[in-house]
Every structure is written in C-alpha cells, then in structure tokens.
C-alpha cells in the first residue's frame, strides 16, 4: 500500500467527517469562484462592449468613478478633439440606468450618435435600425426583448415617453444585449440633457501607435481641464462597481481560505488525537517522522482537493443559475479563465496542507512508547 492509498484509506475510515470537511471547503471555494467569476465577467463585459465598438480612447470627466460618468456638453470637446492628429472620429454616447417597465429591474439605456461607427458591431436580429437621428424609436437587445417580452412593433415607455420598438439586435457584449438603444438626440431629449453626453468615444487611425495614444492622452490632460482620456480597460478598472466587485471577491477568497484552514486544522487535529495509538504503532514499526507528516498533510490535501474541485463545479453552476435569474439576466456574464479554475483546487490543497501542518507535526512528535499506552 502506497502512502497515497494509505491516506485515502484513512479518509474513507471516517466518511461522515471527511465528507463534511470537504463540503465546507467546497462551499468556501464555490463562493469565491462565483464572486470572482461575476466580478471578472462584469469587467470583461464592459471592456468587450467598448472594444467591440472599436473605440480606442474614451474621454470622460476626471471624477467619473461612478458607474455612470456625469454628463457634459459634447460639442466643444468634440470639435477640439477632431483637430488632433491621428484622430479619425469622435462620437458621443449618453448612458443611463432607467426603469422601462414597472415589473422589470432598471436597464441600461444608451444613446449613440446616429450613423456612427458605434452601431457597426451590432447584428440586427429583427426589424430595422432608427432611420435618422430624430426618429423617436428604440432598438432593444435580445436579452431585453426576452426580459420585457417585447418584439418589433411593441411600445416601450421610457421616462414618460412612449417609443416604438423598431428592431432587436445582438451584440458580443452581454451588457449591450440587456440594453435599450436609441439615437443620441433621442436619449438627450428623453433624459432632458440636450447636447450632453457622458462619454466621448475616440477612434484613431489604424496606424496610431501607443506613443501616439500617450501623446493624445497627455494633450487632453493639459488642454481639457477636468477631463481625462483613457483606454476602455482603464475606464473599466476605475469603475466603482468593478472595484467593489473585485474587492468583494478578493475578501471572500481570503475569508474562505482562513475558514478552510481552521476547518482542516480542526478535522486533522481530531483525527490525529483519535489515532494516537495507530501513529505510535507506525512509528514503532520504523516509520520516519517525516513520513507521518507526509501522511497527515496528504490526508488534509486530499480532503481539500476534493472540496476544491467540488467547489469549482458548484461555483460555476451557481453563477450559471444567477445568470438566468430574471432579475440579473443581461447583467451577469460570468467569466472563468481556465487558469483561475485550475488555481482554485490548488489553492484549496495549499489551504489543506497549511491546516494539516500543525496536527501532522504533533503526530510526528509522539513517542511510540507513550502512544502505544493510549487506548
């Protein structure tokens, strides 16, 4: 019998305790996986939405750490930016989180400059796009259509204005699939923000290098006080919601690790105390103290590895369920990088080794003569 088989056998000898410990570890890992997946997905989805639109730089207010940057008058900045070298296009975007149906949660309502490049990445599934900037109509994402049970020809009430749905679109970004889209002019009218946007999207020449991007960012900092030019990744990184989500997932992982260590510590300590005589026999038979440490730590690692794998599966499943809840549909697009999923059971195993270390040391220090006298 190898050491691995021996450790496995020991765990099987106490199935209830082993199962409960593994389950506790699994729950901690599941919570960490779900939260990290949601936080990472939220970040990725925002970035995907910006990247899919083909935006190279985003100009927004300096203090825009809120989910929605505060609005500003677009025209003066737009004209100034168009004069910058390597700038191909500058288009405005107004976004708000609004309730469009009493029974549905608030949705993202986007106003995009009509006929701008922003629309190009969207795929029309049904109906048509707004015919011109002044047409008071909306197009909705596939998730919004499903959530609100709306189709082309239906009416949508936004901020007291009834607007017909003329199209349904699909995007590679979950955030856009769960949104309502109209022309910028219509969004400004609907929200009483004439001439205002909360983001200016800057598209650069394909030949623009990172040095050009840095030069534009520096120039904006100097020439447009109160504004900042950032890449979509930087914007997402500054977003308060993304920051909170990341902090929560990190805190959960930390707490789950500490709780995991304590649980494993307790389980293995109980196990070692119950097996004093058995360990004494092993030592009397000539087992090295190092081998006893390996055995106890191995048992702890096996327990937490099993818990870690189960936790990853539960965490992914839980997130999938959340994604399909009506309340959260279109808002969660969880992202589980393979490296992260592989890392979690390894982290759980390390937690197991940490938790099992003291009980293992205690077991290895037993004097065989003393241990054999124990009942």
């Amino acid at each position: 019998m190898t050491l691995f088989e021996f450790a496995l056998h020991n765990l099987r000898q106490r199935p209830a305790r082993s199962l409960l410990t593994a389950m506790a570890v699994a729950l901690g890992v599941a919570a960490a996986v779900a939260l990290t997946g949601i936080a990472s997905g939220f970040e990725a989805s925002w970035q995907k939405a910006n990247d899919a639109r083909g935006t190279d730089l985003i100009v927004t207010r300096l203090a825009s750490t809120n989910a929605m940057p505060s609005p500003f008058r677009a025209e003066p900045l737009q004209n100034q930016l168009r004069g910058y070298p390597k700038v191909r296009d500058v288009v405005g975007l107004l976004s708000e989180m609004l309730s469009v149906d009493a029974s549905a949660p608030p949705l993202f309502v986007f106003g995009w400059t009509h006929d701008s490049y922003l629309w190009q990445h969207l795929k029309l599934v049904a109906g048509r796009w707004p015919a011109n900037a002044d047409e008071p109509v909306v197009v909705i994402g596939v998730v919004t259509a499903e959530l609100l049970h709306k189709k082309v020809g239906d009416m949508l009430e936004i901020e007291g204005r009834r607007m017909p749905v003329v199209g349904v679109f699909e995007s590679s970004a979950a955030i856009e699939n769960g949104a309502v889209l109209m022309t910028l002019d219509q969004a400004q009218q609907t929200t009483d923000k004439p001439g205002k946007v909360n983001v200016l999207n800057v598209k650069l020449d394909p030949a623009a290098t990172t040095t050009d991007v840095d030069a534009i960012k520096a120039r904006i900092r100097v020439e447009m006080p109160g504004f900042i030019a950032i890449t979509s990744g930087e914007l997402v990184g500054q977003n308060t919601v993304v920051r909170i989500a990341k902090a929560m997932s990190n805190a959960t992982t930390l707490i789950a690790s500490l709780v995991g260590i304590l649980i494993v510590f307790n389980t293995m300590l109980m196990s070692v105390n119950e097996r004093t005589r058995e360990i004494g026999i092993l030592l009397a038979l000539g087992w090295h103290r190092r081998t006893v440490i390996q055995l106890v730590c191995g048992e702890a690692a096996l327990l937490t590895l099993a818990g870690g794998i189960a936790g990853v599966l539960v965490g992914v499943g839980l997130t999938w369920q959340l994604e399909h809840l009506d309340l959260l549909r279109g808002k969660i697009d969880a992202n589980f990088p393979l490296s992260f999923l592989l890392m979690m059971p390894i982290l759980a195993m390390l937690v197991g080794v940490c938790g099992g270390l003291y009980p293992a040391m205690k077991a290895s220090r037993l004097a065989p003569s003393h241990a054999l006298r124990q009942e």
Partner: protein
Amino acid sequence: MKMPRLSVLIMLAAIALPAAAAPTAAELAAKMREARLTPGFEARFQAVNLAPDGQRSTPIKAAVVGQFDATRRRLVLRGIAPEAIRDEIRAVEYRVDGCSRAADGNGPADPFAPLFGTRLVAWDMLAPWWDWSRQSLAGADRVAGRECVLVRSRADDRDTPPIREVLSCIDADAGISLRTQLFDSHGALVRDITVVTTMRKESGLLAARKVTVAVSDKRTEVETYSGDEHYEVPVGAFAKLEGQATTCR
C-alpha cells in the same frame, strides 16, 4: 515657580484650543447654505409610498431642476410617471429675505403641499431653515453609521411658516444633513427626513441618493436614479413663478 505656571498655561491652551476650533451653529448653517449653492442641477427620482403594513405603492417618477444662489433658491418639479402625474408641474421659490412663492400648472400653489401624492414637500427641498437667524447646537448623534452634529433652527416669526422648528443632524464637512426633523408650532413632529444612502458630488461633498420621508407611521422612500450637476437651466424654466404673489414672513 516658572515651570508650574507654564504647565498651567499649556493645559489651559489644550482645553481652550479645541473649544475655539468648534464651529458655532450659525457657522454650520452658513456652511450648509454654501454647500447647496449651484447655478443649476437636474435630477430624476423615484418615490414609493409605504403603508404602515409595509405595502408599497406604484413607483412615482419625477424630475427636478434647481438653481440655488446667494439670494434665492428655485425648484421646478415635473411628474414623469405614472400617467396620472405626467407633466404635472410644481415650481417653488424661496428668497433669503424670507419671501416665498409657489405655482403649479394652474396658478399659485401651496409650497407645503405634498408632491405627486408622496410625502415629499417642495419647501423642505429648499431648506429655508438654514437662513433663519436662530440657530443653536443641540449635541451630537449618529445616523446611518455616521457622526453628525445636531443643529436646532427656530423660525423668527410666530405667524409663518407652519414649520416652526427644525432639528438637523448634519455632517457639515460633507455638506449634508443626515436627518432632518420638522416640528410645528406645538412642537409636534411633522416630518422626519432621513438619508439612507449618499453619493459624492464632483466637489467632493455628499448628496443624498436615497432618503426616507416619514409622516407619523407612513413613509415615502425617495431614490435619485439620474442626475446632472452641471445642468444649464433653460430660459423660462421657472416661468410658472412669474407673476405669482409672494408671501413674506
């Protein structure tokens, strides 16, 4: 003999310095007035009435445009939803000399009348009590986990307005009153406005994002869902107030 005298002086200074640094009620009131100054803002809010049994009403949505300067504060509120209150207008103005006027779509209106069927009152939103001359400190308290200073404001005149006394728990550095209790001439509590959540303005000061307005055992929850701190108030935004009679204290 010199050393003990020096020690006494240091001790006295240590006691006296914090006392000197503590702002008076009048200074706090001035700070609150200053924190509210704005050439123009626009906000949209959703209000839900809660019955004593916890039952929630249909959400009421409205927009508010405001302009607060050193001499007067003006607001115009417009109903958005439901259909029954759509485009219902209420405009209200308060001047620091104590005169005020209000109007709706049909003519003069009562600035103390509840708005759009909620427990919100336009007069409260103008916070005229910060201009009252009788301000006093009333201790300290803690609201929603934040330390705040209690300031009691008393109306100067016996005749107007119906609110005679206001007890505010303020975080003057953040420019926000975390709880405002309004009392009538008999000292009875008329309304209690408590901030539930806040948002940070570009100035770094705080503004209420969600508040609860309680009138006896009935409450209205009000939450701001959209806003513009740099709103350019259109010409004629307060036209409804033109020609309306003013009431002065």
